[in-house]
């Protein structure tokens, strides 16, 4: 127990400001899901934006911990699944992997760089969409349309949004 108790319970010794920022992520995550559910109803051209994924990726990148990233991705993904009529777990799996990989990436490169953030936004969006399509096709036998060109364009748009969004979230 004492051998690895430190890393597991270390969070209780974090500074108060750090804990406050941790709690701040909960409304941010809920807000991103509400944005995804509610905004396209009134501003249809914003439906390309995968706000929960961008929040997951930013959380994983700033924490620099794959486990934190995958847990955040899992929680946000499952909540997103709850608003779909598909079986729960598709978004969960896709975002878990995205969060894990983003956490791993943050340990290897400087993710404060704008170019890296743009590339991360682009890559993780495309990966997320492809993974969702693959899971829905393979596990649920759903005939989802996957247009590579459209997905690439949406990846670029999400990456363009990701850069200022990540900067804004950094300041919180």
């Amino acid at each position: 127990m004492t051998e690895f108790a430190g890393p597991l319970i270390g969070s209780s010794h974090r500074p108060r400001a750090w804990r406050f920022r941790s709690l701040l992520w909960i409304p941010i995550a809920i807000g991103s899901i509400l944005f995804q559910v509610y905004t396209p109803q009134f501003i249809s051209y914003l439906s390309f934006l995968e706000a929960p994924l961008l929040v997951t990726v930013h959380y994983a990148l700033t924490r620099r911990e794959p486990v934190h990233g995958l847990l955040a991705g899992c929680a946000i993904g499952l909540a997103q699944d709850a608003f779909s009529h598909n079986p729960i777990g598709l978004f969960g799996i896709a975002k878990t992997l995205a969060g894990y990989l983003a956490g791993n990436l943050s340990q290897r490169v400087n993710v404060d760089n704008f170019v890296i953030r743009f590339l991360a936004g682009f890559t993780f969006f495309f990966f997320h969409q492809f993974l969702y399509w693959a899971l829905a096709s393979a596990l649920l036998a759903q005939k989802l349309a996957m247009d590579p060109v459209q997905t690439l364009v949406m990846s670029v748009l999400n990456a363009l949004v990701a850069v200022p969004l990540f900067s804004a979230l950094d300041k919180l």
Partner: protein
Amino acid sequence: MENDISRYRNIAALVVVLGAQFLLLAYQVKGRQDVPVVRLWASSAFAPVARGVSALRENTIGVVEHYAGLASAQNDNVRLRSELDRLKLENQFLKNELRTASNAQALAMFLPTSPQRLLAARIIGASTTPGSRVLFLDRGARDGVRERMAVITPDGIAGRIGAVRPGGAQLILVTDLNFAAGVITERSRVQGVLKGQGHASVLVEYVQNEDKVAVGEMLFTSGDDVDFPKGLPVGEVKISRRGRGLFKEIFVEPAGLARGLDSVLIVLQGVPQELPAPSTATPESVKEAPLAVAAPGAPLPIDADKILQKYERISEANRHRMGAGPAPSFTLTAPAAPPPAPPAGAKP
């Protein structure tokens, strides 16, 4: 030891979390069971916020929109008053009012005229799934809404109720991949199954290639499924062509979604209706159909008709009236067509 744990901790956590989610998926797919706790929690957390945002929007942007619309209507009114007489002005004003009426007003007008027992509901959110066409309504089990109830607009069917919560419900649109309903065509009364495709148009399946379904023809619910009462408008056929296998490929534009969706009507108790009489307009595909040798509106000749025509020609050649006297010799062939007339001025 500590190094080993930290080395494998990340990948172990990933395997555990992914494995748990795969098991959850397998449980739902294999057992065809939902996880209502997660959905109920999410819905309960979401609905009050969504209602608040919706009310805020209606009381801010909505008021401005209505005011702008009112100002525009007043300007129109003044301009028309100077140009037209009183009767024409009133008529024009009513037409403008009807044209600019919101969906909610249209629903209010439609409600008392429909024989169905209906419940008006407002849309407060959309699903997050790509390719899915699922919306969230502000009416739920408390209002008497149940799963699989039909949802319509004054123009046609909009979808079907999915999961129902106490304060809200899911609306699975006709364009959703999981939507299906029995339909019947207006003219030829051919039955098929309407299926959503995840995009704007929907597909009608299981209509045989031999059946005639014309472009422009209206489809109605057939009432075969227990969800939709017979006779509700579904949409207009946009594409009708031979399929690769036994069945035609028919694409339909859903009439119920044509004007966008702000509010809908839930059919609490459906009443089957008579299908309207087929329209007399000649559909486009009948004009272009290669086998359409008959006059428009007339039944196409089948083999029995051809045999009857052959015997009529033989009877005429024998000067025999069919159905009277002894049977003529049907071994005779029909007379050959007369030779072409010689050109003018030619000598015999």
